[in-house]
């Protein structure tokens, strides 16, 4: 998937992955895509909740090796 920015949130525990995601999204223009890589298993549900609450759609969630890869679109 194409993305405009990548955020490396590996090794960070709740709530840092979504806090950093929020910050990274602030810098994007509407419609741009953010890729987030995290290792915290809790981040899977957190990202979904974040997407639901803030209206920035979560395009996909995948697990690659030990990482969780998320693609979010800025609304």
């Amino acid at each position: 998937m194409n993305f405009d920015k990548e955020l490396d949130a590996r090794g960070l525990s709740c709530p840092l992955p979504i806090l950093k995601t929020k910050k990274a999204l602030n810098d994007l223009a509407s419609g741009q895509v953010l890729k987030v890589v995290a290792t915290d298993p809790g981040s899977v549900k957190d990202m979904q909740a974040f997407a639901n609450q803030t209206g920035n759609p979560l395009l996909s969630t995948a697990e690659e090796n030990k990482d969780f890869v998320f693609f979010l679109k800025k609304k």
Partner: protein
Amino acid sequence: MENQPKKMAIIASKGTLDMAYPPLILATTAAALGYEVQIFFTFYGLQLLRRDLSHIKISPLANPAMPMPVPMPVMVSMLPGMESMATMMMKQKIKKHGVASLDELRSLCLEADVKLIACQMTIDLFEFDKSEFIDGIDYGGAATFLEFAGQADITLFI
């Protein structure tokens, strides 16, 4: 219909390392999710507003729920140095597992416009000086806070 942002009010009354995390983590997370958040720091919670947070400790004494590497009788928990050791071990764990430090969480609160309010009564009670606390905080009393808390969707006492 326009969605009004939800509000969360937290009363932070504790000043130990383990109890410092819940208000700050909940506040930063709620702010990231679009909540308007206010935290009222009262009694020992005021310690979390000090300029230097390195003094925040955790005691193994009378903390039977604290996971310990080895079983620890109370008689040992009270020995000199045990509190510093428990604090040091906890801080090491926090760093090792990528959990944010208190400083980082507090900075994130301020960045996210979480309103931090220091209880004026407690300051007077313990004769603290405003210069001991960080900038960017408000000073207030229970009535002021209750005005916000009364409209909040989530109100927590920690």
